[in-house]
């Protein structure tokens, strides 16, 4: 375990100290390259406006689609009259739910709820007889211009019979609540219990007990690029869909199923993505819909989500009701949390499943033998969820970290010390909990480094001095454990992935991979890894992602898995090729294959450096003389591999424990805020964090991920919310209501890294990408509450907008 600072200014010149840990067996030697990170691939294209996003795709003859959406949160559809829309001269196609029934099957779920024991139901690309949320697609129009398509929506008359709606999860659980899916009998989608020991007994016997509640409002991903699709269904039967999607291959499979087309005649191209973060997981009705519209229009059709429609997609609306028993020293003896997730309406989108990690992540980095966590996904008449970075894990971080602070406050112990007393110690790893097999961790060390980086003691002094002047500074700690790389057998959310490496006769190398990049830099890192295996320049390695016609089957981008899986698979494939090439070099140069090393663009004998061939010469010779020259008996310079499975425990052990996630990065955060006690406005003054995601391939890119995650966490903690009005419609329709952070809202974050390798992964890496959201949310939640302490109140409603904070102050809600 070591610490390395993130180079603050020049990523290219900052030398990574020689403190990178010894990599686990099988990992490439990263010492030379760490810190000399290549520039982001295609940066010049992006910087000069020449990169192509989905909305930039415009095949000849393109037409435009617009979608009519439900204005009601819950209603029966008694009829749809599209006559007038169809009569418009500029309208090519009008499709209603009833029309679509014969053209497309029900949609496959991104994550079929029944796999994890939940209730389920079927959905179509357009609603047929009932709508269950404002914004649900009801009909679609294709016209020669988008303006014409949108205008024609006014000419579709839908006869709705409004039904009672329920928006609040607690109300939805009441017996007299309107039921969304009658066949279920109530609104509970399922129940995820995670427990060890006997929490109730331990809490009952504990010397001190705290019971409290934490509420988190509905939040939203807000990628800068909204979703979009361009479909071209050629008369010959070949369908191409350009999609802003994180999962091109599963999307292709689903399209083939839904539309009844052989899978190999469907091509999905995941275009360059303007931010994903879960919003672009597949499962949306628009995916097959736009394809159908293209077939019906006999022309390419484009649909781009409006910002208002984008804001429909929800996440993170949770309530925690927790109980914690602890001793005089602040050691937790028993913990329970009943978590209710208001997942909106169920849909084939995957977001509802965030309720699983929300519970599974407990008890986080803490050694608590007795705990009982229940996470309950509840359907309501709000729009469905899709994924949102953090994926529910931020819920555990917020609740656990808030609990640590409450315990500290109760016992009069410093909050950092309470955490130290409860952390799982380093020597206890690997460590089992009910649903996690934790790989490795130096939690206390990470926290202590974060405190040092923040100047924790000095912050406390500043806080005291400010208070003497009537100003309320707050210091908050957030520690986050982030299960990454989840593998759910039976779904397309898998923990492995595939890469092909191909060496061309010229010595050029192609990597084709099943993982995609939403702008995380993984393509750059993958090229870098493969170039290192071959000892060639990184520029000689091309990486192709996202095109199902050229890439091997893969699952795309989610849960920070892309580099760990696709990158590891590419390394394995490159190594196999390297062996083949070394064998060939051995035959050609009459030297021992094991004696060759690949460096500086050549294959060189270690013992006799003059015995060498350039990488390109060797490749070309294998193509030209393979099978014709003695010893050149494997001329296939293309290998496809998957990465090796690691640390998955799908089959429960004798104690019923299982682990669907293989890697467990973590991070420690310290925030300083000032709470304006007269207005409730919170200003973020300083922010420091330590991140540990094991061995790091590209430190700059990992830092970039963290910075982004922290900003999203701060936004979620303080400002971001989509409230619903009394009519059941979302009230935030623009960025003037959904307040994602702007540059003046944030300080520069101080970030350093600790590296505790995973003993289980090929590269020693842990996932990097989601980590940081929950830590930031927790740190801010605690910082604001710390600032409120002298006022004797708590604020347990996130986001902590000024009205929420002032409410807490005015109502005097006692701690």
């Amino acid at each position: 375990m070591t610490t390395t600072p993130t180079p603050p200014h020049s990523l290219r010149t900052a030398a990574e100290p020689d403190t990178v840990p010894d990599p686990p067996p099988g990992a490439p030697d990263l010492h030379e390259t760490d810190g000399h990170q290549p520039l982001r691939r295609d940066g010049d294209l992006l910087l000069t406006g020449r990169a192509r996003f989905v909305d930039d795709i415009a095949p000849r003859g393109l037409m435009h689609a617009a979608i009519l959406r439900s204005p009601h949160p819950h209603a029966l559809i008694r009829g749809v009259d599209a006559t007038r829309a169809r009569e418009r001269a500029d309208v090519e196609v009008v499709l209603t739910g009833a029309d679509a029934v014969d053209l497309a099957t029900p949609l496959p779920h991104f994550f079929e709820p029944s796999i994890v024991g939940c209730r389920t139901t079927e959905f179509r690309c357009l609603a047929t007889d009932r709508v269950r949320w404002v914004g649900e697609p009801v009909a679609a129009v294709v016209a020669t211009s988008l303006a014409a398509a949108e205008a024609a929506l006014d000419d579709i008359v839908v006869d709705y019979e409004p039904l009672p709606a329920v928006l609040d999860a607690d109300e939805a659980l009441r017996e007299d609540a309107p039921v969304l899916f009658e066949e279920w009998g109530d609104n509970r989608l399922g129940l995820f219990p995670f427990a060890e020991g006997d929490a109730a007994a331990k809490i009952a016997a504990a010397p001190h007990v705290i019971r409290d509640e934490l509420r988190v409002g509905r939040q939203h991903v807000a990628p800068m690029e909204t979703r979009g699709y361009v479909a071209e269904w050629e008369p010959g039967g070949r369908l191409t869909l350009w999609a802003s999607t994180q999962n091109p291959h599963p999307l292709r499979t689903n399209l083939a199923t839904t539309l009844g087309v052989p899978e190999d005649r469907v091509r999905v191209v995941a275009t360059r993505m303007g931010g994903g973060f879960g919003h672009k997981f597949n499962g949306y009705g628009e995916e097959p819909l736009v394809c159908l519209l293209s077939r019906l229009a006999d022309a390419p059709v484009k649909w781009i989500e409006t910002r208002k429609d984008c804001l429909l997609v929800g996440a993170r609306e949770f309530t925690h009701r927790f109980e914690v028993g602890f001793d005089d020293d602040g050691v937790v003896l028993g913990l329970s949390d009943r978590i209710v997730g208001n997942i909106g309406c169920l849909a084939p989108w995957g977001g509802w499943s965030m309720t699983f990690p929300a519970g599974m992540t407990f008890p986080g980095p803490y050694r608590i033998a007795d705990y009982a966590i229940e996470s309950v996904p509840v359907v309501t008449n709000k729009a469905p969820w899709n994924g949102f970075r953090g994926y529910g894990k931020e819920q555990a971080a917020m609740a656990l970290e808030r609990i640590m602070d409450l315990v500290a406050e109760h016992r009069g112990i410093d909050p950092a010390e309470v955490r130290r007393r409860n952390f799982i110690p380093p020597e206890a790893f690997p460590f089992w909990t009910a649903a996690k097999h934790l790989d490795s961790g130096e939690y206390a060390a990470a926290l202590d480094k974060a405190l040092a980086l923040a100047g924790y003691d000095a912050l406390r002094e500043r806080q005291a001095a400010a208070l003497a002047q009537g100003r309320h500074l707050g210091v908050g700690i957030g520690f986050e454990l982030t299960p990454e790389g989840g593998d759910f057998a039976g779904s397309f959310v898998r923990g492995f992935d595939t890469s092909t490496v191909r060496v061309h006769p010229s010595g050029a190398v192609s990597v084709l991979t099943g993982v995609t990049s939403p702008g995380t830099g993984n393509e750059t890192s993958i090229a870098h890894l493969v170039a290192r295996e071959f000892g060639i320049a990184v520029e000689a390695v091309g990486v192709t992602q996202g095109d199902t016609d050229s890439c091997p089957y893969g699952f795309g981008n989610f849960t920070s898995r892309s580099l760990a899986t696709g990158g590891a698979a590419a390394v394995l494939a490159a190594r196999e090729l390297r062996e083949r090439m070394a064998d060939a070099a051995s035959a050609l140069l009459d030297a021992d294959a094991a004696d060759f090393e690949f460096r500086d663009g050549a294959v060189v004998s270690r013992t006799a450096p003059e015995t060498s061939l350039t990488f390109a010469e060797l490749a070309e010779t294998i193509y030209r003389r393979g099978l014709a020259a003695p010893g050149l008996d494997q001329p296939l310079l293309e290998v496809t591999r998957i990465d090796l499975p690691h640390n998955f425990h799908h089959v429960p052990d004798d104690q019923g424990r299982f682990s669907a996630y293989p890697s467990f990065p973590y991070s420690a955060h310290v925030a300083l805020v000032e709470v304006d006690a007269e207005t409730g406005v919170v200003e973020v003054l300083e922010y420091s964090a330590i991140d540990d995601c094991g061995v790091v391939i590209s430190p700059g890119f990992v830092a970039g991920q963290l910075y982004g995650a922290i900003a999203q966490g701060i936004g979620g903690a303080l400002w971001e919310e989509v409230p619903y009005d009394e009519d059941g419609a979302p009230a935030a329709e623009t960025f003037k209501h959904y307040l994602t952070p702007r540059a003046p809202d944030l300080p520069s974050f101080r970030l350093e890294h600790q590296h505790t390798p995973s003993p289980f992964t090929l590269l020693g890496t842990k996932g990097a990408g989601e980590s940081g959201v929950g830590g930031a949310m927790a740190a801010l939640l605690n910082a604001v509450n710390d600032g409120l302490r002298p006022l004797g109140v708590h604020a347990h409603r996130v986001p902590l907008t000024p009205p929420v904070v002032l409410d807490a102050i005015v109502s005097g809600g006692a701690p």
Partner: protein
Amino acid sequence: MTAVEPDAAPERDLALTVNGRRKRVRIEDRQLLVDVLRDNLGMTGTHIGCANGDCGACTVRMDGQITKSCLVLAASAEGADVTTIEGYSPRGTLDHVQQAFWDLDAFQCGFCLPGHLFAVRDLLDRDPDPGEDDIREALRGNLCRCTGYVNLVAAAGEAARREREDQSP
């Protein structure tokens, strides 16, 4: 029943200079400048993130003034001199701001770049040595969801430093 024939949307010829080249395009009066740049002129580097003036991804420079092109009716831009991200620096080159953005990893998905590049350029043209707060204020009309602005702010400072270095003899 006969098809309803909508009367045509009013159109006009629009003369513009885009990235130094004279253009004459046929547009509908209802088109926004961003749509004309993207759809009629094929300049797709200017992005639409919100169509509400909030995110800045559609930023261009118009007659010397940086402008959100989703807030401009194209018909009102007759005769304007417009620079888009494609013409931000001469073809095949990167200016100090672009290069510093790349070197310091100031962007990830890159969708928001038009706003951030033009805002930083606009700042440095007015103030060659901005402090962190000045930079953050200059970026306030833009949104980025990937970077937390950390490297963006650092890159703007680095670009300023490199430009000052260039200027000093």
